[in-house]
């Protein structure tokens, strides 16, 4: 009986210590009312809750609470909320944050306050490039990965001449620039580009210009409602039927859902996640949909789940929530979860995993609601993202 006499107080001591050190507060900061509300929004909160539950935080003596707020896609609003969360509400880690400008603002503040920022929703490569931060991990995708996936693979499949329809602001320009680099490196050529006002409603005029260029592929360097309307109107003007391919450079499964397969069929796009990839993703997505009004998760939701899970593992392993130690642990340990499989977090804060090139199914091919993609190619993690030495991140020697 000597054993239990020792074990009991020791266990109690450990538990007390754990409870003291591990009161975690997660802030889900994203768009809850604007154009990204469906692809991030409340779904990201659901994903974070699922990560906490699947990790078994409570049984492990880690007390996690989740707060959420709407940043309205505005960097000023995002900054104000982030400061308030860090200074007044004891938030330890901010997750999601779509909209590149808002994400960069939150990254700066997180560094200043020495907390942790796990971005899933934003696209800018700056987060792991010149503006990289020791406190930030960019989880799900970036514009390089999308350009690389769609641009490279399309050229390989014979789509060598391109015309771009580009949203006339920083995001659109950089997406266009990155894709052009990939297309030209793969041996393709660019016949022309047209810049449309952001946000736009009618794209028929730009589509006609793209059509008369005679390019094999029309690249859509825009996002959200703009992409939806461009694809819709391309179908209407018979552009895809006439043999030109449409390549969406930033398009999510919620956009395909809004378009309907009749309109979106044949569109080629790159994503990091699809609910119907394997048994694990199907099982998880089913649980997600039950808690989120029947809607399947986007890759942004999946990224929030995966990043929160990896963060909690690191907190458990280090027994602290101090940013430096947790970040070191997160970068040192390979990631593994049912959604992205195995992966890793690089020194520049880029989390890498396989990316997928999908083609949208036709209504005949689809067997039910949300059955939208067929996989054309898997881009292995090491080729999917920008090489670390090309990013110019000061954290990389």
């Amino acid at each position, binding site marked *: 009986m000597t054993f239990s006499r020792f074990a009991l107080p020791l266990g109690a001591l450990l538990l007390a210590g754990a409870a003291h050190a591990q009161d975690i507060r997660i802030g889900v900061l994203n768009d809850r009312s604007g154009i990204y509300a469906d692809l991030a929004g409340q779904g990201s909160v659901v994903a974070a809750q699922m990560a906490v539950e699947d990790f078994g935080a409570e049984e492990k003596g880690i007390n996690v609470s989740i707060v959420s707020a709407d940043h309205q896609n505005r960097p000023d609003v995002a900054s104000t909320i982030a400061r308030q969360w860090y200074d007044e509400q004891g938030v330890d880690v901010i997750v999601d944050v779509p909209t590149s400008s808002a994400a960069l603002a939150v990254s700066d503040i997180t560094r200043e306050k020495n907390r942790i920022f796990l971005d899933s929703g934003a696209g800018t490569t700056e987060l792991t490039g010149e503006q990289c931060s020791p406190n930030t991990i960019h989880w799900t995708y970036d514009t390089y990965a999308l350009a690389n996936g769609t641009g490279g693979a399309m050229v390989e499949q014979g789509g060598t001449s391109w015309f771009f329809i580009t949203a006339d602001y920083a995001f659109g320009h950089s997406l266009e620039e990155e894709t052009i680099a990939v297309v030209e490196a793969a041996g393709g050529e660019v016949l022309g580009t047209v810049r449309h*006002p952001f946000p736009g409603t009618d794209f028929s005029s730009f589509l006609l210009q793209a059509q008369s260029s005679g390019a094999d592929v029309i690249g859509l360097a825009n996002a959200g*409602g703009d992409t939806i309307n461009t694809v819709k109107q391309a179908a209407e003007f018979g552009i895809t039927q006439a043999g030109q391919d449409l390549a969406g450079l930033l398009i999510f499964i919620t956009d395909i859902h809004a378009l309907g397969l009749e309109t979106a069929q044949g569109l080629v796009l790159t994503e990091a996640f699809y609910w119907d990839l394997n048994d694990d993703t199907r099982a998880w997505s089913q649980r997600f949909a039950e808690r989120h009004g029947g809607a399947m998760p986007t890759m942004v939701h999946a990224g929030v789940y995966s990043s929160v899970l990896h963060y909690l593992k690191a907190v458990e392993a280090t027994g602290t929530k101090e940013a430096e130690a947790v970040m070191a642990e997160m970068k040192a340990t390979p990631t593994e979860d049912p959604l992205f499989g195995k992966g890793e977090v690089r020194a520049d804060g880029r989390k890498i995993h396989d990316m997928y090139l999908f083609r949208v199914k036709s209504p005949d091919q689809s067997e039910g609601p949300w059955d939208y993609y067929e996989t054309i190619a898997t881009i292995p993690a090491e080729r999917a993202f920008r090489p670390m030495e090309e990013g110019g991140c000061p954290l990389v020697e």
Partner: protein
Amino acid sequence: MFELLGIPPQALFGQLLLGLINGSFYALLSLGLAVIFGLLNIINFAHGALYMMGAFVAWMLLNYLGIGYWPALILAPLAVGIFGMVIERLMIARLYHLDHLYGLLLTFGLALIIQGLFRNEYGISGLPYQIPTQLAGGQNLGFMFLPNYRAWVVVASLLVCFGTWFMIEKTRLGALLRAATENPALVGAFGINVPRLITLTYGFGVALAAFAGVLAAPIYSVNPNMGADLIIVVFAVVVIGGMGSILGSIVTGFGLGLVEGLTRVFYPEGSAVVIFVIMAIVLLVKPAGLFGRAA
């Protein structure tokens, strides 16, 4: 083949035609605004939200009741028009004796509430609505592929615009309406129910917005913000045409669609602002608008 400023004429014709199609929406929406402002003196900021409701009602009819596009073209404006009349009776009617600004604030608030409710219920990505099968496909005009549906939009819009103008300017009913706004007391003394006339007018203006919404549903995304994106441009059209001028709103609606279409060819980056530049110039040179009478 000759070229005009570096653009082949085929491309130019195509773009002009597209401009005309966009102009159809501007004309329909600004017409509704002009009717409401001209006869009720209310700056109806909820117009964009009601246009959005038109598209959503068409979507609901199809998805909940299985009612297709053609009946929706009548039913949706009717439903939204009735909704508009209820709003007019319950709220807007209380503001007629106050400054324009109160009506503007009330309708702006209503627009935010309506958009918010739809956003909560249907999300932001938008809902699919297919082009009716009778109008699927298109014609190859040689210089461009014209989808049948777009041709229909221009025709429908022209018919409705002309019909509205005719009714207000050339019929007895229109004469009564105009008289009722000039001098409600006198018209009332002739035994005409003026408040009812005004309610019906508001309902009609709203129904025009909803009609435009149904027309837009198959080509633009049916989403809660679709009206908010368009309404600012439409207000500019109304200001350029002259607040309250029926003919002005129709002509400028189509005209500005053409100007915007041309800008998309020569300087696409400027196509979002060209209408506002014209508005600024018109306000400087002719503050009452191109077709407006100076107050």
